[in-house]
């Protein structure tokens, strides 16, 4: 009924906020444009001039035509977020497509969506000859997407706090680090920038020690940090982390990936000196137990099957891939074909579980997330205890996540619903893959990788894959990153708009 009364007004408000965000996306293209100019990659400069201009023209047009003073409602906020990610990827794909390294615009759009959603699946051709400007843009998209495109806009462009919160929640984050959502957004950016400086410096030094020239060390250090901390998975080289042949790079990226998978709220507590939180937090406990259990099973399997018989292989291949999968990063120290041909079904299943579970809520990872897993597990154990005790007894269960939280049925229910949606999304992509002729398990692996925004591949994702599968993975990356709610609301909004209700 609300939409019937003000549907054009709804569109106007949504468009106005979209305009602000598109300008922010365009402004971000200035960084790769400047780098290309500095490195005399003049052809690339034009690619970014076109991308920048289109973003700003679209943004200015929406701001001018749809000028409004009104704050966003919940519905408008959710629709804004869902559309932001679809259209921002469209704008981000423009300079990529113009690079000539993609077979068609859909491939460039796939790459941009993969970048913004911090997935890391790639359809690029001949990455090793890509310009520095385009490569920086691929990684910058990951950084923006990891922090949240809307969070970025919130920090600098949106003044109304309530509207800002609606955008923040729509982007798949339902926790505030600080009481004010704009302060939260600024904290997330501030913290990320601090880690960015430290992490890039460390990776640069490792690069120098490994024989890379200074300029390349800095460039690779910055790019690798952005993609690792935002659990993205793009790298400047086609071999992913294998390119460096360096255990130091692998160890450093493991630490950065884990940092990226931690809840920003937990980071805040740690920076405030509350170290005890690490020992008590349900997400940290669930993540540690999951990694320990899966790595133990994987190690036994790898040794028994003869896949990896030595410590080096077990740790730098098995453990590295597991951390990469569990944090949703997608960095690889093995080739796609090795996962498909050598690892075997059991290892694939373990990796699918790790990818599907993901990292912390309010972090840059995708997937079901550790808090939900902890809540569902605690809810299950509460129910079993209730069955075992007399009916008259009252049981109260608490979980520790920053503070003590009483486990209420509503919390368990909401965690279960999102988990269920993720499971459906994983299976949906696998069924599409199987329908198109791929074996089910590899199809499930690739589908989970896309939907949980991981980026590990067992070889299905390539420029030759069917268009339907490309579209499916784009949808999965988008839906998985936004965690469904804003997508459902966009669908409802669209249907109501068409029906005129």
């Amino acid at each position, binding site marked *: 009924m609300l939409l019937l009364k003000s549907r054009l007004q709804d569109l106007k408000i949504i468009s106005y906020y979209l305009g602000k965000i598109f300008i922010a996306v365009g402004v971000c293209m200035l960084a790769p444009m400047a780098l290309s100019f500095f490195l005399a990659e003049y*052809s690339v400069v034009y690619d970014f001039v076109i991308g920048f*201009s289109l973003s700003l023209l679209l943004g200015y047009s929406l701001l001018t035509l749809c000028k409004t003073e009104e704050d966003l409602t919940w519905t408008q906020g959710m629709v804004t977020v869902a559309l932001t990610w679809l259209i921002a990827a469209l704008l981000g794909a423009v300079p990529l497509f113009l690079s000539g390294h993609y077979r068609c615009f859909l491939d460039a759009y796939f790459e941009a969506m993969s970048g913004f959603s911090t997935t890391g699946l790639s359809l690029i051709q001949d990455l090793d000859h890509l310009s520095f400007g385009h490569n920086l843009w691929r990684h910058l998209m990951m950084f923006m997407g990891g922090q949240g495109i809307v969070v970025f806009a919130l920090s600098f462009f949106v003044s109304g706090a309530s509207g800002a919160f609606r955008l923040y929640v729509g982007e798949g984050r339902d926790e505030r680090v600080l009481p004010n959502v704009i302060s939260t957004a600024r904290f997330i950016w501030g913290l990320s920038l601090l880690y960015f400086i430290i992490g890039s410096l460390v990776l640069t030094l490792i690069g120098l020690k490994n024989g890379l020239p200074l300029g390349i060390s800095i460039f690779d250090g910055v790019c690798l940090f952005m993609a690792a901390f935002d659990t993205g998975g793009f790298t400047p080289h086609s071999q992913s982390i294998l*390119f460096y042949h360096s255990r130091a790079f692998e160890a450093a990226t493991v630490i950065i990936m884990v940092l990226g998978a931690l809840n920003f709220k937990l980071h805040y507590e740690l920076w405030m000196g509350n170290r005890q939180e690490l020992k008590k937090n349900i997400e940290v406990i669930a993540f540690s137990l999951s990694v320990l259990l899966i790595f133990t099973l994987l190690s036994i399997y790898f040794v028994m099957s003869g896949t990896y018989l030595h410590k080096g292989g077990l740790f730098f*291949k098995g453990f590295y891939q597991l951390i990469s999968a569990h944090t949703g990063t997608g960095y690889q120290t093995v080739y796609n074909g090795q996962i498909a041909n050598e690892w075997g079904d059991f290892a694939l299943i373990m990796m699918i579980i790790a990818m599907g579970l993901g990292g912390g809520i309010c972090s840059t990872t995708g997937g079901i997330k550790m808090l939900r897993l902890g809540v569902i597990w605690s809810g299950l154990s509460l129910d079993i205890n209730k069955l075992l005790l007399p009916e008259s007894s009252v049981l109260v269960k608490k979980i520790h996540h920053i503070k003590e939280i009483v486990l209420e049925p509503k919390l368990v229910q909401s965690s279960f619903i999102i988990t269920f949606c993720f499971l459906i999304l994983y299976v949906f992509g696998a069924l599409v893959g199987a329908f198109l002729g791929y074996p089910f398990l590899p199809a499930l692996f690739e589908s989970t990788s896309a939907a949980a925004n991981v980026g590990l591949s067992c070889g299905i994702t390539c420029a030759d894959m069917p268009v339907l599968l490309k579209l499916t993975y784009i949808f999965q990356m988008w839906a998985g990153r936004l965690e469904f709610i804003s997508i459902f609301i966009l669908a409802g909004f669209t249907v109501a708009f068409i029906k005129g209700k």
Partner: protein
Amino acid sequence: MIKYIRIFLLLCAVLCCADVYARAETLLYRRSAQLIEQALELDESTVVFKGEVVGHILPRGNYAWLNVYDGDNAIGVWCPLYMAALIKHTGSYSMRGDSVALSGVFHRECREHAGELDIHALTLEVVRSGSSIKHDVSPLKRKFAITLLVLVLMCGLFVMVRKRR
């Protein structure tokens, strides 16, 4: 009868030659996809590989890492520094790297390098020298970019003037 025996012998000789030729072909050129897919069978065997050196040469004491790209994947090649010194150009945005042909021992899980899939080079030869890549800007792209930029500047001015009013 002698005629038939001769024909039979001739056929056998042709078949043998064809087989030897086929074996030589597979021995000569291994594709990276083949190395990855048949890693178990080819483990610890001597292979011949060909491709473009991309990225950078990464020295490690008296040895160095090269990444050799054959159009499908890049494979890590571990070689002595004197071999790496033969390479003058490595592939990047502005450069087509030297094409090398090398023979070496293929490892599926190299014990020396923490389980990497790599080739330890025994011989290496530069078969084609690299060259710089020219990136011309198409006039259409240039015109389109400048037109859009002018439009953006006009829009920016319009918004600024409107704000002041």
